[in-house]
């Protein structure tokens, strides 16, 4: 009995052992890895091993050295949610390929690869490259005059679009035409001239070489008279490594000038629709652009504008736009800004980041709780951005207080307007102003006994000599407007024949009707006066009340800070600017690099590459769709998910 028990006990142990071993055999996936032929140059005898997420450091050390290979080092910066990455030197007698195959068989290894050799791009020799923090942030302090965004200057080293790694892959975008739909481009600028998409373009009037001008009737000359478009163009594609000025994200490029905004930076639906259709058009004489940048915006839904963007989508064009500079949350319907908020999938809407990758204080954003519904997509550098410019502005007003007119010599056409220099002060000094009747009493908080009559038509105007030759002439002013009902109007006009600018033949600069109470001076309200280039260009303001309606004792208009400047184009002008307008071209440049690298990409691949390839940044997590700031190298690394997978018996 006892003997049998002992025999049975040993047999039991065998049986238990059998069952126990069964539990060990299953569970480990069989990995059949056919290693390929590595044709690219790699460091001889070295293998990089990416371990899976839960593999600890010391375990990785042991696994790397398991077969006699030497652990050279563990990489110090690895992506989140992955295990350690180790560099190993393979032992004598086996090849890199064989070592890789060995490592790949280990269930703890994500993948193993050769240590490929890359040629890092060295910094280009452009004179002001060190100012381009958005491309390379070394924590540099920007000290040039003209810099006014002081928050987070200097910023944080590394907070940039990683352009030098991207340039190790590609820096030439010239196979991709990028259209700058804006105030035009100064195509004579020394750092842009070689990167223009010169051609033979069918413009509203005549043939253009650098693009077309669609402002108003339009011309074949898209010269930039404001500076904005030139600045945007430089961020995308100023010539790199030519010792001059700055460099674009594209060191070589094909920039197409599409002028739809005038010298004051204003444009209309009609101009923009023509411009977008031209830029995206593929017929002879059209732009054939594959990327459009639009650093512009307006507040209301515009069916024709959206339709033009949808047409561009059918031509596979990516449209990169600025989010807006009013610090507004686009998830609130009344804050909607367009084209940013159009739902079309070929649009990338860009918010602005500062030098520490905080969101710029002025930047619009979208904090919609439904992430997929957010219209602002990604962030990009947008403060203290150095780039190419149009030239210089000269004051034309010759009074005792340039640059503003002192309001002497104005003609008060009908009763109502009067000169006043005590009502408003700035730093204790009275400010010259034109005010409608009793306006000072109203705004000082008192109740004026004067209620404007119905059917009022008060005009005030002055002749200016604008015959000097400039590339453009711009007038601007500030206005305080109180109009109680919709029948009351304010107009600003000019007339090149001089005298009353409210007769037939005059041109409107600005207008509004009531009800409107600005609660202070709004401005600058600008107008392009280039057509008023006579010795007697009359500029004037008009206050009209309706034939019926109750006017309030608080009604009236106040005008201050009237200035007129002449724009002179120059070839070596640069400037610092701030805005989501500056952030947008960083993304357009990245999109151009991605498109140039991957000629077969559809617009959706480019959009996905930009959004998915960005760097997560806390300030943008709940304020943009991707939660990222754009990264040029990340966008180039992105790979679209394979499609059209079929399986069949073989």
């Amino acid at each position, binding site marked *: 009995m006892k003997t049998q028990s002992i025999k049975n006990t040993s047999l039991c142990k065998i049986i238990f052992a059998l069952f126990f071993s069964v539990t060990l055999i299953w569970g480990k996936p069989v990995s059949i890895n056919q290693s390929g032929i590595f044709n690219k140059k790699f460091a001889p005898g070295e293998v990089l091993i990416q371990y899976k997420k839960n593999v600890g450091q010391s375990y990785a050390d042991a696994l790397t050295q398991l077969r006699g290979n030497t652990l050279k080092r563990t990489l110090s910066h690895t992506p989140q949610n992955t295990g350690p990455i180790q560099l190993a030197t393979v032992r004598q007698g086996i090849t890199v390929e064989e070592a890789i195959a060995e490592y790949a068989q280990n269930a703890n290894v*994500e993948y193993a690869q050769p240590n490929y050799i890359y040629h890092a791009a060295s910094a280009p020799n452009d004179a002001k490259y060190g100012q381009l923090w958005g491309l390379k942030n070394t924590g540099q302090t920007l000290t040039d005059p003209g810099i006014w965004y002081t928050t987070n200057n200097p910023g944080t080293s590394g907070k940039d679009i990683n352009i030098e790694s991207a340039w190790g892959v590609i820096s030439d975008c010239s196979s991709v035409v990028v259209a700058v739909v804006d105030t035009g481009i100064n195509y004579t600028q020394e750092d842009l001239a070689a990167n223009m998409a010169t051609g033979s373009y069918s413009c509203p009037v005549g043939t253009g070489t650098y693009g077309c001008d669609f402002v108003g009737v339009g011309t074949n000359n898209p010269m930039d008279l404001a500076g904005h478009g030139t600045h945007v163009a430089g961020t995308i594609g100023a010539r790199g490594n030519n010792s001059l000025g700055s460099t674009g994200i594209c060191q070589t490029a094909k920039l197409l000038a599409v002028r739809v905004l005038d010298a004051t930076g204003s444009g209309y639906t009609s101009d923009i629709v023509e411009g977008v259709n031209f830029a995206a058009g593929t017929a002879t004489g059209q732009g054939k652009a594959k990327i459009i940048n639009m650093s512009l915006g307006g507040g209301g839904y515009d069916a024709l504008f959206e339709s033009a963007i949808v047409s561009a989508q059918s031509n596979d064009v990516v449209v990169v736009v600025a989010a807006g500079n009013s610090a507004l949350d686009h998830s609130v319907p009344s804050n909607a800004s367009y084209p940013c908020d159009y739902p079309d999938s070929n649009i990338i809407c860009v918010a602005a980041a500062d030098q520490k990758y905080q969101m710029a204080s002025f930047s619009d954003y979208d904090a919609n709780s439904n992430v997929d519904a957010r219209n602002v997509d990604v962030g990009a550098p947008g403060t203290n951005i150095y780039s190419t410019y149009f030239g210089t502005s000269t004051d034309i007003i010759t009074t005792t207080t340039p640059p503003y007119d002192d309001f002497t010599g104005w003609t008060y056409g009908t009763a109502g307007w009067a000169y006043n220099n005590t009502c408003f002060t700035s730093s204790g000094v009275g400010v010259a102003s034109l005010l409608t009747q009793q306006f000072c009493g109203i705004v000082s908080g008192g109740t004026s006994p004067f209620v404007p009559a119905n059917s009022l038509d008060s005009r005030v105007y002055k002749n200016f000599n604008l015959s000097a030759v400039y590339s453009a002439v711009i007038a601007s002013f500030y206005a305080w407007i109180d109009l109680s009902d919709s029948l009351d109007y304010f107009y600003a006009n000019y007339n090149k024949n001089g005298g009353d600018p409210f007769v037939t033949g005059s041109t409107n600069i600005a207008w509004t009707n009531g009800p409107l109470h600005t609660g202070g001076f709004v401005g600058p309200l600008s107008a392009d006066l280039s057509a008023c280039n006579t010795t007697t260009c009359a500029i004037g303001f008009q206050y009209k009340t309706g034939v019926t309606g109750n006017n309030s004792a608080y009604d009236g208009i106040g005008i201050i800070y009237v200035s007129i400047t002449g724009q002179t184009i120059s070839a070596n002008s640069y400037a610092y600017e701030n805005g989501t307008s500056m952030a947008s071209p960083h993304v357009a440049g990245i999109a151009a690099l991605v498109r140039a690298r991957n000629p077969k990409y559809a617009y959706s691949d480019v959009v996905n590459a930009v959004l998915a390839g960005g760097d997560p940044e806390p300030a943008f997590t709940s304020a943009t769709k991707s939660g990222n700031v754009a990264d040029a190298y990340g966008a180039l690394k992105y790979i679209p998910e394979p499609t059209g997978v079929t399986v069949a018996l*073989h």
Partner: protein
Amino acid sequence: MSILIKELKICSASKFHQTFIVYFVVVACSLILGNCSPSCMDGKGDKSIKITWDSSRSYDVSTVSGGGHKVYYNSTSSISKTNSAIVDIPASTSGVSGTISKLHGGCTYYIRVGAYSNLNPAGSNLSAERSIKIP
């Protein structure tokens, strides 16, 4: 088999052994049966399947050496990069198809395809999952 049962009877004399028998039988049973009969992923079958996909639009995947695709497969669904077997198809071999052999008839296999490049060895997101039942 009968010997085994006879030994089992003897072994189950004590409660300690009973517990262990139950435990191991349950565990062994579930593991064995979890892989069904036959073992679909044992690499010992005689069937092959061919997988095809759209050529990658990425230049670094399809044209720069060091790029290619990986086919991930398993006999259970919800394939990921970490829970499946892998067949590597470098672009120099093919940009649009690959075969998996040594599979078993009677098994269903689930497949997803990923693309990779020198710049991005970890690779793209995986494609939609496909399946095939081998008769």
